[in-house]
């Protein structure tokens, strides 16, 4: 008998003994007959459900079940597949994209059919400064969007932009809203979002939960799970207890020890694949001695990545070959690497004229795994004579020196859509120097990034990204410590869950086992 059933039996027998069944919440018969909801933990409460304003993972999580896009990632992967659009064409010059919409898609709650005008409206909302869209810049490349007829939409770009489908339309910036619903709800849209996705918004009780109901008219067929309840639980340890008590069915975790405890309990399905995230340190190339490549090579050789993966991650992470994980388009492992070798590091430092080492500092935010990882890196550096001062700040405070460019080394934790254009542009194009997040002030791959955008042929584009990775491995604008796993635990009777890659939960693929 497992611990959970034991606990349940205990609960009943004790309750009956004490004669206080109503007090301790033994489920009543009537409730047991209601369809079982899928209860999903989110790490914070939602803050927005209007797509143009969504910036946090929790809101994305919920919105992803409500809205559709023209295209989406196939659940659990980084491949593009049709969503509202049944198919699409790209002109030979790569500047015109024509999408043909499905004709059988209805808005939630009787808002009628989804048409090309809604797509045009949704995209143009980003461009109106009054709407304060967070994604306006994503559409800089777009010249116009028009509804050719009720079910055909045409985008004209100012120049070819290959990531338009994979990055712009398949991520947060691509959700389609109903013009009528936006106008009807006005300021109350947060409590009245209308989409065309697999689930319909039912209610939001701030701080308590968000409830969605299955969309019986969903164009791919009504989802099997009737009700979705998202519960905000910030602390991993509290979520662990809620998993154990059966109050939530599915949760992603940050803390390895919590994940491993749940995994070893044998009560749950636990998965930990490598996703799109990397942990690393950007090197401020404008400050000596980091302008010296020998010094950067020495630092790269000084970090014991395998030791970090084995201790901090208990073997669940991977030693990175570079900044992009294998999930990204164009990933290559054919790059120069810098295995852990303190002696080689000291030789390189001596060669660079820093035989006695030097003092520097690492700035990082206080969210896991950095508080655990930073002291190990400090010890690694100490071994080769580099004195590393650790500066830990809470996230909002960490942003201040980060934006000012005021640091030697700065720790980052990344995760972005699977198309490499966005992440490379943000982290390594010179247009993203601080206050952007090119914290290295690295400017050697601008042309390659731009060349890749113009390239229509996917293989040729992949080759450019491979070239970028090789170039970065030689230049060392940052030090990559691990590719981190996505840590997910769910009840064993949930079937069809696909690991969340781009914050989309895809509840329509799930059901409860009989």
């Amino acid at each position, binding site marked *: 008998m497992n611990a959970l059933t034991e*606990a*349940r039996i*205990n*609960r009943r027998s*004790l*309750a009956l003994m004490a004669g206080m069944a*109503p*007090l*301790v*919440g033994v489920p009543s018969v009537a409730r047991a007959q209601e369809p079982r909801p899928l209860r999903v933990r989110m790490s*914070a*409460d939602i*803050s*927005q459900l209007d797509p143009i304003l969504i*910036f946090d993972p929790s809101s994305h999580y919920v919105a992803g079940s409500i809205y559709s896009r023209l295209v989406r990632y196939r659940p659990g992967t980084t491949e593009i597949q049709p969503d509202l659009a049944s198919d699409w064409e790209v002109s030979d010059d790569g500047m015109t994209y024509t999408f043909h919409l499905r004709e059988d898609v209805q808005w939630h709650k009787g808002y009628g059919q989804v048409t090309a005008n809604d797509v045009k409206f949704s995209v143009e909302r980003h461009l109106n*400064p009054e709407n*304060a869209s*967070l994604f*306006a*810049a994503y559409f800089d490349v777009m010249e116009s969007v028009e509804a050719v007829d009720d079910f055909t939409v045409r985008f004209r770009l100012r120049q070819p932009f290959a990531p338009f489908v994979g990055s712009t339309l398949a991520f947060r910036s691509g959700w389609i809203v109903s013009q009528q619903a936006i106008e009807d709800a006005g*300021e109350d849209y*947060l409590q009245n979002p209308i989409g065309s996705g697999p689930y319909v918004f039912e209610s939001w*009780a*701030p*701080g*308590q*939960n968000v409830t969605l109901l299955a969309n019986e008219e969903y164009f791919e067929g009504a989802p099997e799970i009737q009700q979705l*309840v998202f*519960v*905000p*639980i*910030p*602390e991993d*340890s*509290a979520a662990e*207890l*809620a998993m*154990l*008590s059966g*109050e*939530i069915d599915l949760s992603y975790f940050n803390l390895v020890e919590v994940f491993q405890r749940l995994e070893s309990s044998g009560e749950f399905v636990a998965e930990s694949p490598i996703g799109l995230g990397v942990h690393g340190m950007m090197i401020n190339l404008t400050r000596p001695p980091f302008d010296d490549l020998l010094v950067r090579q020495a630092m790269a050789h000084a970090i014991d990545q395998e030791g970090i993966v084995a201790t901090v991650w208990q073997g669940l992470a991977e030693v990175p070959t570079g900044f992009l994980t294998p999930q990204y388009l164009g990933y290559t492992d054919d790059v120069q690497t810098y295995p852990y070798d303190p002696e080689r590091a000291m030789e390189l430092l001596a060669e660079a004229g820093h035989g006695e080492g030097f003092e520097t500092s690492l700035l990082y935010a206080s969210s896991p795994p950095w508080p655990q990882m930073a002291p190990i890196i400090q010890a690694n550096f100490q071994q080769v004579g580099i004195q590393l001062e650790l500066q830990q*700040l*809470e*996230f*909002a*405070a*960490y*942003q*201040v020196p980060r*934006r000012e460019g005021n640091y030697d080394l700065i720790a980052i934790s990344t995760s972005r859509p699977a198309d490499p254009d*966005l992440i490379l542009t*943000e982290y390594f194009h010179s247009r993203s120097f601080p*206050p*952007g*997040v090119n914290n290295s002030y690295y400017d050697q791959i601008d042309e390659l990034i731009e060349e890749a955008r113009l390239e229509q042929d996917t293989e040729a584009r992949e080759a450019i990204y491979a070239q970028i990775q090789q170039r970065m491995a030689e230049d060392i604008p940052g030090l990559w410590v691990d590719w981190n796993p996505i840590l997910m635990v769910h009840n064993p009777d949930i079937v069809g869950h696909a690991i969340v890659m781009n914050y989309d939960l895809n509840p329509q693929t799930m059901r409860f086992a009989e």
Partner: protein
Amino acid sequence: MKYFFQIVLSLIPTILGAITIVFLVIHFVPGDPVSVMLGEFAAPEAEAQLRSDLGLDRPLIVQFGDYLLHLASGDLGRSIRLGTPVIEQIIDRLPYTIALTTFASAISLMVGMPLGIIAAVRRKTAADYVTRSVALIAVSMPTFWLGLLMILLFSIQLGWFPVLGSSASTVGEFLHRAVLPSAALGTVMAALIARVTRASMLEVLNQDYVRTARAKGLQESIVHYRHALKNALLPIITIVGLNVGQLLGGAVITESVFSWPGLGKLFIDSMYARDYPMIQGVALFFAIGVITVNLVTDLIYGIVNPVMRHG
């Protein structure tokens, strides 16, 4: 009545002081809501635009003056994070925190006082030592740790109570969910009250009038409860009143551990997002709460101790 209004008027400077301190502290903490809201990949122009939309680019003194002006007309502003009026959120969450702190106070009085009395009356017996040791441990225990231990025992092992405090649909369910967080929050204060009750009772029990009462041949229980306890109450009431602030601080932590959707959790969430208007609004309510309870404590003094009525 005139006396009452005088007291209320005298509270205004206190509240103003609290608001000013909170305003200054949160603005001097590094980081601002715009950078949290727009995430790392925001364009500088978009940031500047939002900062100016929110009025955050104005001098601090102007922002503060503006805040006070709105406050004077009862407007707490809109949440930066949620876009909704601050007052709406606070009113949604307030009942949870009032319930939590009220239950916790009730639990702490119901447990702490009897234990303190027993320890005093049975001084230097096993009961006394046990009570004092348990109280010492409870006072030293961090609330969040105690909360987790209680969840492990009562929710996971015994299955009596839910882990999550949220989403109750009936009053019965609400009360059921409130038991564990209230107990966790109340335990520390119960220990404090037990210690104060014991000390205060001991002092009173040694006084002449108690000896007189005993000499008159009164029953011990009447001496303890009617004569001694009545006079020992003042320090206990003081402790309860003074600790409401501490209780609210504890609520911030307890609410996070138990996912209890009260003001404390709202406060923490707003702090991480640097949601200035919300932080100020919640802090204002906390200040009003503490001041009100202290005021009530003053009034209760008068009832318990007639000497203080005209003081």
